[in-house]
């Protein structure tokens, strides 16, 4: 194991490998990624890996547009295999007047940013997705460039590109502590050895707060368990990804043919537990069969859970912590970390290397929580 590095990234999920790639792309040298289990073992390997540009806050629209364009030619840029980007579009289902009002505003914002989302009548939505019971919705929005990717292949593509540019990845390596001398990071201690460094990138996802404690930094974030299930595999019958905030669900038919679906359940534990929730299958089944009755024939095969790293305004945090020099954090994605990964990589590379920001990353700093100008993001499941 190396005993020194310019930058040590903690966390081998999609954010960690993306940040690593962008750092080396913009000229950083001697970058190391430390992963406790294997790449994508955390929330990355547990999520539906969707990507949508249909948001209420412009910064989120801009960042996901950036990410979408990156994913569209990731195979060439990373040069390490396909990322299975299935661009079947996202269909957001609207079932309340209040939500319809907010959605109309969102569409104006999105169109102004070059995102060609459209409003659909229930009948139009029904033609695109025959499985839908259109009586349950008032309207829908659709953006054909949205879709989902393979979380595993995308993570592997970033990781291989990172290694090809000279980066080093240590799997099965657990971070046990971070040395700080007069307010500056000096080394990262692991169960396999110690690496001296002046820059530590906290990309530990749901464990961001645990890692931050190692430098006595307090993050206004909490990690919450979110359950998800997959059904048996069938022939492809559903192309777009479906989502509804008011009806509280998201669903896709994965390349394997299984339908992946999830929702936000009440009072979920915040103790980093990723066990299965005993009420989730029934709640999920009721939600889905209410909206898509034919899916009642589908058999649930498996249920699992991952951590959402929640921020107060449900928008990400990209910043250096005030308490300790050289300790950077990228977290608080509140359930859409995967789709933001290219933007996260770009942001952290520019912040760490002091490059001029291509997007207003400062709006996503920690200071916003004390100054009060939060980026309230209404559209999150």
């Amino acid at each position: 194991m190396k005993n020194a590095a310019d930058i040590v990234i903690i966390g081998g999920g999609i954010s960690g490998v993306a940040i690593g790639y962008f750092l080396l792309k913009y000229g950083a040298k001697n970058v190391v990624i430390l992963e406790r289990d294997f790449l994508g073992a955390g929330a990355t390997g547990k999520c539906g890996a969707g990507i949508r540009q249909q948001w209420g806050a412009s910064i989120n629209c801009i960042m996901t547009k950036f990410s979408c364009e990156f994913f569209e030619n990731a195979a060439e840029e990373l040069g390490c295999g396909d990322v299975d980007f299935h661009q079947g579009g996202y269909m957001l289902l609207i079932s309340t007047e209040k939500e319809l009002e907010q959605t109309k505003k969102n569409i104006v914002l999105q169109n102004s940013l070059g995102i060609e989302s459209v409003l659909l009548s229930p009948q139009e939505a029904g033609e695109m997705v025959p499985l839908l019971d259109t009586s349950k919705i008032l309207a829908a929005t659709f953006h054909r460039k949205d879709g989902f990717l393979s979380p595993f292949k995308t993570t592997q593509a970033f990781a291989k590109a990172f290694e090809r540019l000279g980066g080093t990845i240590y799997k099965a390596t657990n971070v046990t502590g971070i040395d700080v001398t007069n307010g500056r990071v000096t080394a990262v201690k692991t169960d396999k050895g110690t690496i001296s460094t002046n820059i530590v990138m906290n990309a530990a996802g749901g464990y961001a707060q645990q890692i931050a404690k190692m430098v006595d930094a307090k993050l206004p974030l909490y990690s919450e368990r979110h359950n998800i299930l997959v059904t048996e595999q069938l022939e492809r019958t559903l192309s777009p990804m479906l989502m509804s905030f008011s009806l509280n669900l998201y669903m896709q038919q994965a390349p394997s043919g299984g339908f992946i679906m999830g929702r936000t359940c009440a009072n979920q534990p915040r103790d980093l537990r990723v066990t299965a929730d005993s009420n989730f299958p029934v709640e999920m089944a009721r939600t889905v069969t209410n909206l898509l009755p034919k899916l009642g024939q589908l058999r649930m095969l498996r249920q699992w859970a991952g951590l959402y790293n929640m921020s107060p305004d449900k928008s990400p945090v990209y910043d250096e912590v005030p308490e300790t020099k050289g300790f950077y954090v990228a977290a608080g994605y509140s359930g859409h970390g995967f789709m933001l990964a290219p933007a996260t990589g770009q942001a952290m590379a520019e912040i760490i290397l002091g490059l001029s920001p291509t997007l207003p990353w400062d709006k996503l700093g920690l200071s916003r929580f004390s100054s009060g100008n939060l980026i309230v993001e209404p559209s999150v499941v």
Partner: protein
Amino acid sequence: MLERSGIPEQAQIDCVFPAEERLEKGPVAVIECFEKIPCNPCAQSCPKSAILPFVDINDRPVIDDELCVGCNACIKKCPGLAIMVVEYSGEKALIKLPHEFKPLPEKGQIVNALNRAGEPVSDAEVVRVIAGKVSVVSIAVDRHLIKTVRGFSFKEKPEIPEKNMGNLELNNTNELDGIVCRCNDLTLGDIRKMISDGYTTIDELKQLARVGMGPCQGRSCIPIILGELSRYLETPIKDLLPTNFRPVVTSVKLSDLAEHDEERTSV
């Protein structure tokens, strides 16, 4: 030897056979049980307690052939059908054998007498048939075969296709080394390649190739993959990172889930 072929050695047989004089005096049980296994029904079944009581259930049975009258009680009780009753009767040897096959032979029928390897050694005449859950068939053979004959078979044997069919050209669609993951059609070669490419945990293989994620939930493939990983990493399986087994054991319909009756309080 017995452990390899299943056929006891002559020496082992000799030491469970009573002396020649005893065989002349009348029927006596012979128990060909040469292994210490947890089993004692023979001792319990003997009305004459000629089979000495077991100290430990794994003891091997010992017969006091003065007490034994060859009444067949133990033949029917031995789970391993290891007991037969034998006696000399003039020029012949009478052998009573346990039989659990249909159809039963008839009295007077001529059958093949078989040795312990199932090979015919001579003809034999069926002298008596006692039908039951375990039937007892006694056959008569030449007396010098008393230690050789251990079974019988009917004269007309079902024709069994001869063994070596090298010339079977079947358009064989076999993958080179067999299917490991039946749900996703992954062969042993596929698995070994992925492991040598650096994916050295079950969960990585699951994510990469969906192995263990099909309807069988990894029951047939994961044990094999553990073996492969253990060999490749030279690490005992108990030290490998285990995978997770998630709900549900067998798939359940979403409609059954949706129709769940929360209030029901009895099965």
